[in-house]
């Protein structure tokens, strides 16, 4: 067992404790970025001017009339940018665009003494546009060959040969929808500049270091002149990994130009219309099965809807390709990927980061082929599970494949699945107007950033003379309980009670060059860095204690606020030891660092072992569908999920439940609609408010919701034997969609095959019920063909492979330096 994963006796990790800020949350005193507004004297408010076209040239921008509106202080435009006019890392996201690339894009920002003044000012700005043709749907993009970025291919074996010899070959298509993050706290930044020109931005960001870099390059400053702090976020879910940067930069630009603090907070409608979402995908596939239903080959082409700029579309696509196998062994595989360029918001990271989309493709294939093969879907799934020793299509051994089976078997038994399946059959036989179904699906999800360089983290741990401890680390708190876990890790590593440790807000001047708190990696990376820092301090204290107690350093035990030797009286209180160490001039703080070992990934070849380990889980969901309307409810959900040895069980169960319900929302209610008509509002987001975009409410919670963490699941080589938890449970919700499909088919005779659009709204389910009763093909679905197969489009040989982001970052820095030398240059790089 590795040093990193070994737990001492009486650890604070593993205790089920509430969120460290729970008391602040429930009393309303926890501060979020916008709560600073009322506490900041003389603050200005920013409001955007949003373009009423999906694609247009800005032919004239006249800000004069806005300046005549009482309370308007300044209008920020491209001409004001001293550095690079770009809010992204790929050089394709002008902050103040000369060409509008999506409906509602901000062309300039108005600063006012009040938000009302800034809003009225934004209405007074005169902008002339020359409308241009716009591509809205991913299918339009495919027809018009509108793509961006690299087009990766993941390939193993000889798919064409395997399909030629397969007893059963099917082909089909799947259009799967995107998803709005709908973090309850919208994007927000508060910026000010101090007397020495130091820029301080408080931002609701998952990636403070990158926010800092972008603020610096927009302002033409070096990184050391910009500090970014994130107090906490009111939800992130990936939506604050890249998207906050531009807003932070606008606020910082306003602050540097006016000398006054500036607040930029998006309203819900602005947030919905301006910021990126989960990528919708279009998938074409052919799959071959043997006579027993074993998968022989999969040929698929995934086209993601990237929106107007690249953002994180390439790594999202890479993860989708790497998860198209989910938990299944597929001997011969070819998956092509490409990113469509459409005139919509720039789609971005969202919990699962392409994994859900890739996994939905294979689960859709299995769910649709099972009745055609005459095999129960649960049996078909289980029959195709990975066995130990097998490798993923990209060549990584599937370690702990038996844990997927363990989760699956436990759900079957604790969920009483066999008995309930019989009850469901009896219910359906006696209820013509409502049908029930139970579906079980597995999850295998790779943990680590695909891009190896991001798998590093830092921490700064201070022990003060009185023995109290202050922890800084590079991760951000968005509700996932990272800070709670870090407190537990620090208390365990130092052997002190939890109350002795405090956590400071995340700041770039405490821990530099951090990675995004993303990819579920926050606790793995930052936990190891915190532990490393604590161990440095403990190592020094051992020497002091050894001398004081007369015990060899290795025989000392740090626990519960005491340092003890083997003997009864060989003990010293932590605080006393710390005080003594100070007098002896021993350094009582340390910077910790961690990098994940053993990762390698060739993004051009799509080969390697990009993941430290896999997370596993299984969910069984029972639904009831009303045949009159397609309305449904979740009757019962049973989940067993593998989080290793949990660092914090209350937090981890909360992540599993919350991820599941969010995934269920993606696959059922949440329905992003864009105006696809040829009218004047083509490209407008039609669901740009909370009243038109519906997330799950309390009424969508399953009536019975049982979540268990897999026991005896120690993960070697990870901090205190734990595993990541943020993203993997989201994909357990695929069981909801599969259950709805099965319930809809139950309205037809046994063996009925239905197609189900995604998201499976009540309307979509209604059309599937109609199909089961002999109706037409449901809208937004394409029938599965058997035998005579459609071959997925194969992007040409000239397609560019994915570029690792490190190369792009380096290139951006060169652009930044050039821009600094010649401040007038800007625009799209």
């Amino acid at each position, binding site marked *: 067992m590795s040093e990193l994963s070994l737990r001492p006796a009486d650890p604070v990790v593993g205790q089920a404790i509430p969120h460290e800020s*729970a008391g602040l949350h429930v009393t309303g*005193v926890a501060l979020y970025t916008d709560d600073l507004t009322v506490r900041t004297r003389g603050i200005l408010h920013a409001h955007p001017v949003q373009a009423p076209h999906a694609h247009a040239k800005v032919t004239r921008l006249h800000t004069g009339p806005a300046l005549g509106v009482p309370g308007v202080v300044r209008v920020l435009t491209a001409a004001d940018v001293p550095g690079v006019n770009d809010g992204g890392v790929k050089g394709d996201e002008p902050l103040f665009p000369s060409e509008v690339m999506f409906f509602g894009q901000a062309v300039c920002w108005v600063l006012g003494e009040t938000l009302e003044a800034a809003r009225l000012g934004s209405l007074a700005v005169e902008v002339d546009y020359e409308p241009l043709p716009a591509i809205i749907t991913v299918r339009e993009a495919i027809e018009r060959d509108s793509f961006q970025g690299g087009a990766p291919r993941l390939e193993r074996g000889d798919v064409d040969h395997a399909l030629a010899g397969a007893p059963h070959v099917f082909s089909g298509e799947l259009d799967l929808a995107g998803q709005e993050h709908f973090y309850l706290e919208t994007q927000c930044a508060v910026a000010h500049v101090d007397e020495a020109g130091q820029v301080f931005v408080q931002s609701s960001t998952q990636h403070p270091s990158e926010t800092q870099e972008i603020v610096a390059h927009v302002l033409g400053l070096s990184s050391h002149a910009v500090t970014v702090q994130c107090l906490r976020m009111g939800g992130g879910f990936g939506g604050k990994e890249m998207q906050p940067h531009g807003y932070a930069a606008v606020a910082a630009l306003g602050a540097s130009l006016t000398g006054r603090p500036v607040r930029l907070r998006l309203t*819900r409608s602005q947030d919905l219309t301006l910021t990126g979402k989960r990528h919708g995908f279009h998938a074409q596939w052919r799959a071959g099965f043997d006579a027993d239903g074993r998968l022989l080959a999969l040929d698929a082409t995934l086209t993601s809807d990237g929106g107007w700029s690249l953002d994180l579309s390439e790594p999202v696509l890479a993860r989708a390709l790497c998860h198209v196998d989910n938990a299944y062994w597929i001997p011969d595989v070819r998956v092509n990927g490409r990113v469509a360029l459409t005139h919509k918001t720039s789609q971005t990271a969202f919990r699962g980061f392409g994994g859900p989309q890739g996994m939905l493709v294979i689960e859709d294939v299995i769910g649709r082929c099972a009745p055609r093969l005459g095999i129960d879907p649960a049996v078909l799934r289980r029959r195709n599970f990975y066995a130990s020793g097998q490798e993923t299509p990209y060549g990584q051994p599937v370690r702990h494949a038996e844990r997927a089976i363990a989760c699956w078997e436990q759900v079957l038994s604790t969920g009483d699945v066999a008995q309930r399946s019989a009850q469901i059959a009896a219910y359906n036989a006696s209820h013509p107007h409502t049908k029930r179904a139970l579906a079980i699906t597995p999850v295998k999800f790779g943990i680590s950033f695909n891009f190896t360089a991001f798998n590093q983290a830092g921490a700064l741990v201070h022990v003060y003379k009185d023995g109290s401890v202050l922890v800084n680390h590079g991760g951000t708190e968005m509700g996932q309980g990272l800070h709670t876990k870090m407190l537990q890790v620090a208390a365990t590593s130092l052997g002190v009670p939890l109350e002795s440790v405090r956590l400071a807000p995340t700041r770039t001047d405490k821990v530099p060059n951090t990675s995004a708190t993303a990819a579920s990696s926050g606790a793995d990376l930052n936990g190891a860095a915190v532990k490393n820092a604590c161990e440095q301090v403990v190592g020094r204290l051992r020497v002091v204690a050894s001398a004081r107690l007369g015990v060899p350093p290795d025989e000392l035990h740090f626990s519960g606020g005491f340092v003890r030797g083997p003997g009864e009286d060989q003990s010293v209180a932590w605080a006393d030891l710390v005080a003594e160490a100070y007098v002896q001039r021993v350094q009582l703080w340390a910077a910790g660092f961690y990098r994940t070992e053993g990762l390698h990934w060739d993004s051009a070849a799509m080969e390697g072992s990009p993941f430290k380990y896999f997370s596993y889980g299984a969910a069984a969901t029972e639904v009831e569908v009303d045949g009159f309307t397609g309305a449904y*409810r979740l009757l019962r959900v049973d989940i067993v999920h593998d989080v290793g040895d949990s660092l914090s069980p209350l937090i981890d169960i909360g992540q599993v439940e919350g991820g599941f319900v969010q995934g269920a929302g993606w696959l059922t209610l949440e329905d992003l*609609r864009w105006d696809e008509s040829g009218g004047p509002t083509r490209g407008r987001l039609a669901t740009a408010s909370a009243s038109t975009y519906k997330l799950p409410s309390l*009424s969508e919670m399953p009536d019975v919701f049982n979540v268990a963490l897999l026991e005896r699941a120690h993960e070697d080589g990870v901090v205190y034997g734990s595993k990541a938890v943020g993203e993997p449970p989201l994909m357990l919700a695929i069981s909801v969609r599969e259950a709805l499909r099965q319930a809809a088919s139950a309205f037809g005779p046994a063996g009925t095959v239905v197609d189900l659009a995604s998201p499976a709204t*009540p309307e979509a389910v209604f059309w599937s019920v109609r199909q089961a009763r002999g109706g037409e093909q449901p809208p937004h679905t394409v029938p599965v063909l058997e035998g005579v197969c459609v071959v997925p489009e194969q992007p040409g040989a000239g397609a560019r492979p994915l570029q690792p982001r490190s190369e792009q970052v380096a290139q951006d820095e060169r652009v930044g330096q050039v821009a600094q030398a010649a401040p007038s240059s800007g625009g799209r790089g």
Partner: protein
Amino acid sequence: MTAEQPHTAQHHTVRVNGADRSLSGVEPATNALDWLRGQGLTGAKEGCAEGECGACAVLVARSDGATGTEWTALNACLVPAAALDGQEVVTAEGLGTPTRLHPVQHEMAVRGGSQCGYCTPGFVCSMAAEYYRDGRVAAARPAGPGAHALQACGPNGFDLEALSGNLCRCTGYRPIRDAAWALGEPRADDPLAVRRAGSPPEATATRLEGRSGTYARPADLAEALALLAEHPEAVLVAGSTDRGVEVNLRGARSPFVIGIDRLPELRGLTVTTDAVEIGAALTLTEVERALAGRVPLLDEVFPQFASRLIRNGATIGGNIGTGSPIGDLPPALLALEAVVVLVGAEGEREVAMADYFTGYRQSVRRADELVRAVRIPLPLAGTTAFHKIAKRRFDDISSVAVAFALDVVDGVVQRARIGLGGVAATPVRALATEAALEGRAWSADTVQTASEVMETEGTPLDDHRASAAYRRAVLGTALQRLHAETAADAVGATHE
């Protein structure tokens, strides 16, 4: 919090968490949320600014329908701050502190009810309102094994409906439900519990002048009509659940706003042998309580109408006054053959609900009139039902709403009244379907024929909520569903 005497109205102040705060200079468009946050009380949050997410929920002292006070949760983002003049408000900060948590806060904290915490103060306020609901514990009954989440009361009588207007994106709700169901009874000396025995704050007449306009709350109907005559451009606001959205999201502003939600003449509810008359300024929560099951069709509507937070503010008159084509009450009122009582300078007039709407958000109401009451004739039809077709069970806007009121005597449909929402520019009666039913046997054959007629009612549109084809299809299945349900009732079958 300290136990308070009933608030003696000082002009232009709100008692917030036990301390008076001045409203002077507040603009008519400033909502209570922005005002509270500007006061430094940043616990209440803006999540949507349209009453959908509940992150802004606060507690307001309101009449309990008798002589006492009820802590009522409202969306602060929708209520004009000026409308709180003379009222009492409690926010999450006022319920407890991190070192002295309120029982609701304690349960939410220890059970993992907060993750990011942003929605939490709003949940806490909604939960506290239900915690303090009079008779909650007394009415407690164990939730059955197949209990529907929609109606489920916990073992402590806690009705989850109370949380229907609060959204959480993190937890998946299970720990929030567990927190709600773990609550005990308030202690006898709990100051907010004690406050319930006192009178609610009076709704005094007021007039607040801001830079951009005026908010006036007249003392009585006569003054309201006079103000309306004097300011024909004035906007009438009751619960502000619709107007607040216009103000927040679409920049609607008005130099003169008249608050009519507390006019005594608009707040009566009378039952005679001929009719039930419901005052226009009663909130839907108040109507539900005062009717006490007298109109079963409305009892089907209420739980499906928006959320508890909205129903605590929204009035029956406002739902008619805004003239939305998909407001859920008008289809029901059409089926009930209700009459709208309008009052103006020239006196009262009555308009049948079926004649009230003239176009999209247009009605026969003149600018100098307001809705005083809605009258529902008695006796009621024997078979009534309300079908709301929407994506979400709590707090959604209907794609289609169908209200049925049928009299079936000896197996024959004597009389049929069907109101539809979401299929035309206004709520409409399904006249052709009614004709296809009346005088015929209430049978599968009749239903089949009438369903085909019903599919052709109205002119449904394609939009982001539903396709026109789906709207038509569910119009067609609505009668079949009603028939299946009434048949099931007739044979005494139960739903599992």
